[in-house]
C-alpha cells in the first residue's frame, strides 16, 4: 500500500494544536501504521520534498512566514489549517484591536517598532487551503476523523450546527440560565462543549457557524435579553476577521 506522506508545520501560534496531535497517544500509534509521517519539526529533524497532506498550525504574521507557507503549499497536495490561529487568525487577532505603539510599548518598552510588524492572518489570506481543523486547541478526536476522511479521499466536512446543540445533547445547564453570557449559540460545534462541561462558558474558539443570526439557537440570546454585540464585547478573545480593523496593527 502506498502510504500518504503527512507533515506538520508551525507558523505563529502556541504549538498547542501540534501537542494535541502528540497527545493522541495510542491513536497516534495506530495512525503511524497507515501514514508516513515525514515532517514535524518539534519531534523530528527530517524535511520532506513532497507531501500528500500538510497540516499547518499558526497564523501568518511576517513576510518570511508568507514565503514559508507558499513553499509548503507548493510541495503539498492538500493543505489543511490546524487550529484557530491558522483557520481564522485565532487569539493572535486580539492584536488587531490595539494600536501598534501600545503593543510595542507594553511588550518591548518603546513605542517605535523594532522590526516590521505584520497583521496576524489566517492561512487562507495567503494561499488557497483545502480545509480546516477548528478549535483552540483542536479536538483530538475530530482531528483523527478528519485525517481518516482525507486518507480515504473524502471531502472534509465540519459540523454546521452551533455548540448549543451539543450542550443540549449532553444535558449541560445553559450558561444564560445561570446569568453568564456565552458564545455557544453562534459557534461551530464539534468540541463536545468542553468548556461548558468544565464549568466555563464558550468563547467561540471554533469560529462562527455559517449563518449565526438565522439559526434556531440564536433566539436563546434574545430570550435572555442579550444582543450579539454585547456578548462579543464580554467574550471576544477570538476576534473574527470581519470585526477586525486590519489597518490598526498593519503599520
Amino acid at each position, binding site marked *: 500500500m502506498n502510504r500518504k506522506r503527512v507533515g506538520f508545520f508551525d507558523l505563529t501560534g502556541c504549538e498547542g494544536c501540534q501537542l*494535541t496531535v502528540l497527545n493522541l497517544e495510542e491513536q497516534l500509534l495506530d495512525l503511524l501504521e497507515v501514514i508516513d509521517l515525514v515532517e514535524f*519539526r*518539534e*519531534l523530528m*529533524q527530517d524535511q520532506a520534498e513532497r507531501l500528500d497532506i500538510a497540516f499547518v498550525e499558526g497564523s501568518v504574521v511576517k513576510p518570511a512566514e508568507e514565503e514559508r507557507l507558499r513553499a509548503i503549499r507548493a510541495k503539498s497536495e492538500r493543505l489543511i489549517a490546524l487550529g484557530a490561529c491558522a483557520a481564522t487568525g485565532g487569539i493572535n487577532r486580539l492584536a488587531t484591536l490595539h494600536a501598534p505603539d501600545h503593543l510595542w510599548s507594553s*511588550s518591548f518598552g518603546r513605542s517605535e517598532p523594532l522590526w516590521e510588524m505584520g497583521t*496576524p492572518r489566517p492561512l487562507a489570506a495567503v494561499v488557497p487551503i483545502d480545509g480546516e481543523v477548528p478549535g483552540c486547541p483542536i479536538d483530538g478526536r475530530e482531528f483523527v476523523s478528519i485525517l481518516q476522511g482525507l486518507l480515504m479521499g473524502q471531502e472534509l466536512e465540519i459540523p454546521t450546527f452551533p455548540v448549543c446543540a451539543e450542550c443540549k445533547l449532553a444535558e449541560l445547564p445553559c450558561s444564560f440560565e445561570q446569568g453568564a453570557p456565552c458564545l455557544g449559540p453562534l459557534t461551530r460545534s464539534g468540541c463536545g462543549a468542553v468548556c461548558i462541561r468544565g464549568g466555563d462558558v464558550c468563547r467561540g474558539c471554533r469560529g462562527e457557524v455559517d449563518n449565526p443570526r438565522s439559526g434556531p439557537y440564536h433566539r436563546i440570546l434574545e430570550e435572555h435579553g442579550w444582543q450579539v454585540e454585547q456578548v462579543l464585547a464580554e467574550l471576544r478573545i477570538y476576534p473574527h476577521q470581519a470585526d477586525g480593523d486590519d489597518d490598526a496593527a498593519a503599520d
Partner: protein
Amino acid sequence: MQLRINQLARIEGHADLVVDLEKGELVSCRFEVVETPRFFEGILTGLHYREVAGVVSRICGICSHSHSLVSLTATEDALGIDISDQTRLLRELLLCGELLQSHLVQLYFMALPDYLLLPSLIQAAKSDRTLLERALRLKKGANAICEVIGGRPVHPVTLRVGGFASLPERKELLQLQQHLRNLLPDLEETIDLFAGLDIPLFSRPVSNVSLQGDGGYPVFGTHMESSDGAVLPVAGYVGQINERLVAHATAKHAEMEGHRYRVGSLARLNNHHQGLAPMAAKVAAVLRIGPGEENPYRMLLARLVEVVHFVERGIQLIDRLEDYDLAPEEPPLPRRFGSGVAAVEAPRGLLLHAYRYGEEGRLLEADCVIPTAQNLASLEEDLAGRVPEIAHLEPDEVSRQLEMLIRAYDPCISCATHLLRVKYV
C-alpha cells in the same frame, strides 16, 4: 568556518544557531530567536480579570497550565482574593501533570534521539516501537492528570479566579492515582535507559535560582532564592531581575543583580534536593545528580529525577485530597482592584506574572518573566564555552554536541518571545 542551523528541530519554538570560527578560534556564537512576537502584554490590556488566564494560557501549549495558574494567582493577589486549601491542592496536582507532560516530551522526543543517533523517536519506531510506546504510555499518565483536574490536556477549562469551576469526582481521582502507580515499571525502564547514556563531560559553574520550597520541593511560593544565598521576595522582582534586549533575538536575556543564572529542574534540584520524595531521592543518588552539579548536559537527569518526584507527589496529593470532601465553592468576590505578583515553578523554571487592574476589573498593565528568557544568557555562554573544547571534531559532531546542549536547557521559545518587557540597563 561558519556553522549555521536554521529552525532547530526538536525544541519548542523557532530558533537558529550560528557559530563563527576562524582558524579554530571562536569569533561568535549566537542562539538566534526567530519566533514572531505575539505582543501578549499589549493584548492583555483592557481584558476583564475573568478572561486574562485563558488568554495567557495561549502563550504556549506546552506550559499552558503554568501560565494559567500563575496568572490566576497574580490576579487573586491583585484582587485581594484568598483561595481554599482544596483549591491549592488541586492546583498543585494540575501543575504536577504539566511538569510531567513537559519533561517526558522533552526527555523522550526531544533529547533522547541525539543520544541514540536517530533523527526522531518516530523514525526509530519504524523498526522497534518499544521506546515510542513506552514514551506515550508515560505521557498518557501525565495527560490523565491534566484531563481529570483541568478538563483537557492543553489549555485547561475548569480553572477560574478564586477556585475551580468544576471538580473531579472521587472515583476519577482514585483511578488517576492507580494510573500513576501503574507508571512505575515504565519509570524504572526509563531510569535504566538514561543512566546508560553517554553524556558529554563539560563543566560550567553558575548560580541556580528557584522559588523557596517551604521545606518541600518548590512549586508555588512568595520568595525566590539563589544558590549564592540571596533570598528575594517575588513581589520585589522589579530591579532584581533585569531583562536586556539583544540584537539577534526577538526574546530578551535576563540577569539578576547583574549576574547570569540558571532556572529549571537542575536549579530546583540543586537548591532543594532535600525536598525530593523518597524514590526520587534514591534515583538522584543512583544517577549521581545533586547539589553542586556543574555539567549543563546533565540537566536531562535532573528532569528525570523530577519526573519520579512528581509522580510520587501526585500520588501523595491525591491521598491528601481524599481527606477533603471535595465540594463546589462559590468564587470569592474581589475586595479591590490593585496590583499583584505571583510566581510558580513551571517545567523550565521560575515563571512570574505581575498585573495591575483598574476599576471594573479591567487589566491596565501586565509583565511576565519567563524561564527561558532567564536561561538564555547562561545558555549562550555555555555554548561559547563548549565550542573551543569540541572545535577539532567533525562539523556534524560539533553541531550534534551543541544541539544537545541547547536541548538540555529545553528552551521554550514561544514563551520567551512573547512576554517580556525590556528594562534598559
